[in-house]
Each structure stands twice: as C-alpha cells, then as structure tokens.
C-alpha cells in the first residue's frame, strides 16, 4: 500500500518521534547556512535548499569526541570509557547523497577493527531521506553511480509529488518499522500505483565517465596535471571536513599532570602536518601530492580495498573551496586526459 506524507503532518511527525524518544535531526536555517541539526518542532525544518552545508557524517563521526578519560594515581592508571553515546535518532530530510555515504563508510569502520562509536550510532539511527527536487552546478551524483533519488543508505525515501506532499517508500526493515510506528502521520496515497504520481526529481547532469577514472589513476601517479590543477590550493581542510565520505581522524590527549581526556578529532589529508614524520621528513611535502592523495584515495585506493568509490557527488568540497578547486572538473580532466606519464622518477 503506497503512502504519502503531507507537509501539514510534519508537526505530528516530529511530535510522534519525540514521544517515542527519538532525537530528530533535520535541515535548519542558521543565518546564511542550512545545517543538519537537532530540531524540536516542525517549524524549524527548512527544505528549500539544494544541499545542507554540513554533511550527515557528524552524527556518526563527530568533529570532536572524547573516547576515554584517564586519571593517573599513585601506582595505577584508572580509565573510564564513554557510554550512552548512541542515542536513538532519526535524521529527517537529509539528501540521498548523504545517505549513500553511510554504507560506503560502514566498510571502513567495520574493517580491521569495529569502530563502536560509528557502528552503535548507525544502529541507533534511522535515515529518512528526501529526494532532491533541485540541484546546482556542483552536484555530480549521477557521475558517480548515484541519483537524486537513490535509495542507498536510506531507511525511508520521500519524494516530492506536489508542493505539500511526499511519496513515502520504505527501503529497509528499520524504515518500515518507523513508518508503521508513526501510524496516521502517513496517509494512504489517493491513487494506487506510484506511476501516476508526479515525482519531482532534479535532473543532475552526467559530467564524466567514471569507468575511465580508475584506469587513468592506475597509470598516472606521476603526471603534470596534479600540480597544474592544485597550485591554487591553499592547503586548508575545508573540503575534507564538509565531505560526507572523508573520515580521517586524529587522536590527541588533552590532559593535565594527573588526568586527561583522549579525544578523537577530524583530520584531513590536505594539511601539511597530516603526514609529517617525527624525523622531520614529510612524504607528502607539497600540495600537489596532497591533492593527488585525496583523488587517489577516493577513486582508486578505496575502490581497490572496499569496492566502492569514496565519493557521493554531493559537490560540497567544490562549493566551499576558498580557491574554487572543483573536484568534478578534475575528474572530467582525468576522464578525458590522455594517459601521458611525465618525468617518471
């Protein structure tokens, strides 16, 4: 039985979630930004945007997080591990690209060791995605095998069918349970059969042939295009921090003489310090090497290791780049560039 969600029911949706003890994350207007953030009422939800400025990852991998506390006593060290970090949550209104990033990252967080912070939060969270009804020049999900209405990673997918109505498709069991538990918030669709509904989905232009990217990367670790493209890079971490699939982190101790917290923070491969050795040697001493690393990791190394591209085409990195480095432009170059290794050292 097809169901729809009417905009007027948003209120009962949020209240319903609250009653069931869910924390609700949704897009919220914050001066010039639209941020995924906790909402208390439906009035706060903002849906008239292409993309939220922050990605969904911070609800699974926060920008900063205490992973243990310790205290040094006379002859021993006592430690305390965090508990209760996985809170029952619904992410409402994230984009399909954001949702698609989650199963991709599941692979690395369940790989050589299980990252309990990621895994438990994933279990506790239900993703209700809204398909994109608009896009901009920076979007390129269709070029990386996704679409503005992809279901990957979502538990429920909503697609706009009129100004005040969304078609509801449950994707997983978790999603089904959530929809069921909310009962009358959802209305049975007037017309049986989804084909009669006018699904409003954006058309995202296909910018490059992804099949050509990896073979080129396999051949061109050394190539002049890396430096040519990245001279303008200023070496900040904005691209990696807004990226829903960049997941590097650093661990630091914040401590006094006798006690401290061990903290996990986002880190990024575009920083000069990221690979600096204690000896002073830096294997990625120039920005073109760091830029190459970002592309290689996303489109070659991750593919080899986990059989997934580490990119969902959300375009955030290009929107936010202080120097207008555009990743899809780089990939277009790669997909069309002749394989011309230069100065192979």
């Amino acid at each position: 039985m097809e169901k729809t969600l009417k905009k007027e029911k948003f209120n009962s949706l949020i209240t319903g979630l609250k009653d069931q003890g869910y924390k609700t994350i949704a897009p919220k207007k914050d001066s010039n930004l639209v941020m995924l953030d906790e909402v208390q009422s439906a009035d706060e939800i903002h849906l008239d945007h292409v993309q939220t400025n922050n990605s969904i990852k911070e609800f699974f991998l926060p920008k900063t997080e205490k992973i243990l506390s310790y205290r040094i006593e006379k002859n021993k060290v006592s430690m305390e591990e965090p508990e209760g970090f996985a809170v029952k949550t619904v992410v409402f209104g994230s984009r399909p690209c954001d949702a698609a990033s989650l199963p991709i990252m599941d692979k690395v967080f369940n790989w050589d060791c299980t990252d309990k912070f990621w895994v438990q939060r994933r279990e506790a969270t239900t993703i209700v995605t809204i398909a994109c009804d608009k896009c901009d020049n920076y979007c390129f999900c269709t070029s990386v095998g996704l679409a503005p209405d992809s279901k990957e990673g979502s538990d429920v997918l909503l697609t706009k069918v009129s100004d005040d109505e969304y078609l509801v498709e449950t994707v997983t069991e978790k999603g089904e349970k959530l929809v069921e538990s909310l009962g009358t918030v959802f209305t049975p669709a007037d017309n049986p059969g989804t084909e009669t509904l006018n699904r409003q989905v954006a058309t995202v232009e296909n910018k490059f042939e992804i099949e050509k990217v990896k073979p080129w990367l396999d051949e061109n670790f050394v190539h002049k295009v890396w430096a040519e493209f990245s001279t303008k890079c200023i070496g900040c971490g904005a691209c990696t921090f807004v990226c829903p699939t960049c997941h590097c982190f650093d661990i630091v101790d914040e401590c006094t003489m006798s006690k401290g917290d061990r903290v996990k923070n986002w880190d990024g491969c575009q920083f000069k310090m990221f690979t600096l050795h204690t000896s002073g040697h830096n294997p990625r001493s120039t920005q073109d090497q760091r830029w190459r690393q970002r592309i290689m990791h996303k489109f070659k190394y991750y593919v080899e290791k986990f059989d997934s591209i580490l990119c969902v085409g959300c375009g955030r990195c290009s929107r936010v780049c202080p120097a207008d480095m555009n990743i899809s432009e780089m990939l277009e170059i790669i997909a069309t560039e002749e394989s011309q290794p230069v100065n192979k050292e």
Partner: protein
Amino acid sequence: MSEENKFEPKIVAFLCNWCTYAGADLAGTGRKQYQANVRVIKLPCTGGIDPLFLIKAFERGADGILVSGCHPGDCHYNSGNYHARRRWNVFRPLLEFCGINPERIQFSWVSAAEGGKWVETINGVIDSIRALGPFEGYQKINTMGPMVSSESANQ
C-alpha cells in the same frame, strides 16, 4: 550562602622576576598580610608573557588574573614592559569584545621596593573578582562534560 560555601576566587598572578616578584617578596619579609587566593608564576619579564598564558590560566580554572611588572623606564631588559603594554592595549579590548569582563585580567606596575603597593594591588584584585563571582562562562566550556556522548554533554 553559608560560611563554608563562600566563593573564594582563584587568582593567577604573572609576575616579573625583577620587580613585582621582589615586591611581593618584600611584603613577605615585612610580614605584611594579604589574602591567600593568589598563585604566583614568576617570569623573567612581562615582555615575555604571551597572551596565551592568560588564556591557559582561564582554561585551568582561574577566576581572575593579575599581570604585573616594572614601572615604565625600569625594565631590566630596557623595553620589555613597553612592548608588553602595547600588547595588553589590544588584547584586553579583544577579550572584552568576546564577552570577558576586563576586570578578570588586571595589570599593574609594582617595583621591588613597593611591598605595600603589592599588598594593596593583590587584595584589590582578589576583592573585585570575589565580587564578580566565579568565572562560570569559561568553566562551562572548560570540560568536555561527563563520560557520555558529546551530544548529550552539550545539552
């Protein structure tokens, strides 16, 4: 508030080795009494005080700070205190702009001979901070919260 719960401020004093520190010492040898709320950190010169020292003191729980050095013209290194004065002239308004009461960071010139002025100054600082109360704003951001998720710690 009952007597035992009365708020006693924690004050950190960054003192120049050549004058204020000696001045405080003189107060001690002269058996002059002053309030015990102050923790003194001795430094070679006020010119060597990075404003980060002051931020760090707040991070470690100070309710108020005193920075004190040689009178203008008396610097052991000729000009350290002049440079320091320039920095404070801009650093103090910056903190005030961020919502930190300028009373929480005070400055003075106290020479090695001014044991009396030291007592008067430090008592004044302690009294004014006691009146302001604990630096709750900073104390709140000082901790990452109890051992639960960062999300619920924020609430």
